[in-house]
């Protein structure tokens, strides 16, 4: 589908090496947020506070990063995120506060605290300001495999249908690949293994499926929930740290809702790492196109791509019985095609809201027929009947 779009729009950027590489960079924080969501919700705790924990992570990375270097920033981001996770665990697991309320409260607290500390700590620091930190010292190592990248990029320039696009795709994976991205990938693999192939994972998931059954078999449910939520905070904090390092500074509002988008990828991925990663990559891709959009052409391309995807999904859904939604999708796709052909360029605001509209679309398609953990969101108290 990408190839079709690229040919029609004759926009090489859609599948170029640089684009793909950058897409992974944008995807990673979202992916980490989604993974964080998986850890918490698989243990039965809804984590709306992901955004706040990410914010804490961005702040930690900015604060430690400009003083002691990038890796210190990463560590600080993880720790700050963990603190947020601990707070949620105390409120929701020990005290049984409604998890969404607790998460929202943490978001509020994180927002206020970071704004306050930013003014306090960064205003007089060299290169910093009231709402942002000085630049982070040093960098995270970045790898490029020239032997693969160069020939494939050349292939991509040739513009051959599908082959070139594939070339660009592969090349992008090996270009400017940051160590943090590799760490993210490893975390995903580790999660898959831990949660589905070990006793630890089984017990953690049982806390989210039927904590009373687990308790009756001697599983220490509360401990697992705590571990899951704190780790969730750590992952979100890492995601935030990634953001700061990628932008080289901490800036107020840098997260821009990515914590919530991460939750959306988790739902899209049916609470499994594989689907979540796919969703995150999709968002990263959209984000990238928007940002490197020099002639406002990328957005057009995106709209066309979106239309094609909607048509495909709509046609697919016609085969199953959900007529109304299928028709809705087809109509939307038609509208988008119409818009594509009628306008020469789109205002930048469309690009600005693209990720959020995409999230809504993703959730609207994916939300039904899913299997969230059975006891997700249910407050658990040891010894109480359910």
């Amino acid at each position, binding site marked *: 589908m990408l190839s079709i779009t690229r040919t029609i729009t004759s926009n090489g950027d859609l599948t170029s090496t640089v684009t793909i590489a950058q897409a992974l960079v944008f995807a990673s924080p979202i992916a980490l947020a989604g993974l964080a969501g998986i850890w918490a919700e698989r243990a039965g705790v809804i984590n709306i506070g992901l955004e706040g924990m990410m914010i804490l992570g961005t702040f930690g990375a900015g604060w430690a990063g400009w003083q002691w270097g990038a890796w210190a920033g990463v560590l600080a981001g993880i720790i700050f995120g963990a603190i947020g996770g601990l707070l949620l665990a105390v409120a929701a697991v020990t005290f049984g506060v409604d998890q969404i309320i607790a998460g929202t*409260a943490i978001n509020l*607290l994180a927002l*206020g605290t970071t*704004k*306050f500390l930013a003014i306090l700590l960064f205003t007089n620091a060299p290169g910093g300001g009231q709402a942002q930190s000085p630049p982070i010292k040093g960098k995270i190592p970045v790898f490029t495999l020239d032997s693969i990248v160069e020939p494939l990029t050349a292939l991509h320039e040739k513009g051959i249908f599908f082959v070139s696009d594939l070339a660009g795709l592969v090349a992008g994976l090996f270009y400017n690949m940051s160590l943090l991205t590799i760490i993210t990938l490893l975390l995903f693999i580790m999660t898959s293994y831990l949660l589905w192939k070990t006793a630890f994972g089984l017990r953690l998931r049982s806390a989210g499926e039927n904590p009373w059954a687990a308790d009756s078999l001697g599983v220490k449910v509360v401990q697992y929930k705590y571990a899951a939520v704190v780790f969730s905070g750590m992952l979100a904090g890492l995601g935030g740290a990634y953001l700061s390092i990628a932008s080289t500074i901490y800036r107020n509002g840098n997260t821009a809702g990515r914590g919530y988008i991460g939750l959306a990828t988790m739902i899209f991925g049916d609470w499994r790492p594989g689907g979540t990663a796919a969703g995150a990559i999709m968002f990263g891709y959209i984000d990238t196109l928007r940002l490197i959009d020099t002639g406002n052409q990328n957005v057009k391309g995106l709209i066309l791509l979106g239309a094609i995807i909607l048509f495909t999904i709509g046609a697919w859904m016609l085969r199953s019985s959900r007529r109304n939604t299928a028709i809705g999708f087809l109509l939307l796709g038609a509208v988008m095609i119409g818009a594509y052909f009628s306008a020469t360029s789109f205002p930048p605001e469309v690009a600005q809201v693209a990720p*959020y509209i995409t999230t809504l679309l993703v959730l609207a398609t994916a939300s039904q027929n899913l299997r969230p953990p059975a006891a997700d969101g249910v407050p658990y108290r040891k010894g109480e009947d359910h």
Partner: protein
Amino acid sequence: MNLRRLATSLIAPAIGLGVSLAATAVILISIGANVTVIFSSMWNYGTSPRAMTLMLNLATVYFLSALAVSIGFKMNLFNIGVNGQYILGSLAAAVVASNLQLPKAISITVTILTAMFVGAAWAGIAAWLKVARGVSEVISTIMLNFIAVGIISYLIVRTSIGTETSVNIRGTKFIPESGMLRGNAFIDPDTKVYGFLIISIFVGVGYWFLLNRTRFGFDLRATGKSASAARTSGVQSTRMIVTTMLLSGAVAGLVGLPYLLGQTGSYNLQFPTEWGFIGIAIALLGRNNPVGIAIGAIFVAFLDVSSGQLVLEGVPREISTIMQGLIVIVVVISYEVVRRNQVKSEQRSVARALAKQEVSA
């Protein structure tokens, strides 16, 4: 009103306030500020007539925002999208009002209805997504917030809705005086209290009536307490969700009006966009009860206004945001603890009372 219940419902906010004050004091001390000086200067400024006027005005806004959120909370629906709903509502209201040349009463009514309609419509999108596609309203309303910001930016910057209203500022056309509600300067001779205050009080009273004295309100509260019992009693959950979200959005649409009609007269990109989140905090503090919300709104507004003084003492005013965040967390935890204790103690006291009855019978 049961005195005992009143006392128990005040414990949690009291604890929250206490903890937060203590924490703030600690923060202040750690950055080398003089706690007593700071608190007393905040208090002195905060009780001055001008500050109190500002506080009332801000409280009006916060009150409406918290009410909007509460309508949803009472039913376990989380309308986090008040931000998006009110900025769209305010923009629409500004556009409509600036084109009207009618007697004040009619003009204001039309403006209010416009804002409510737009706010409700925006919330309605999230409602539809929830009932038709099962999308969590928490995420959808937050996404709609971001989308609303984009829409507004587009409309003001790139269409004729925005004009050059001042040096380097694009906004809607100014609303004529006949459409404004500037209010009265009865506390401080130089600053007016927004006229919208009266309307807000009506909205609050209406909210209380709706919730406690109508069938709909009963259904709503019942759904919040036990969705299964409500269903058995005849409530249709789909209809409830949609109606509640629409109502919540309608009230949310009003949030920008006190400021728009009382002060600026034009909607531009400087218009505050964070009042929705504060409404969530206050709704939690006030436990979704109009009186509690009113008190919470006044308190938070007081903090906000008087913390402006802090800048003069070299303390970032955002410390008030930290206080608010802390209060919310501590209060929310305290409420839960108090509630659980209450259930247990009630069971015990009922058992005791019955035992006494049997002995004397």
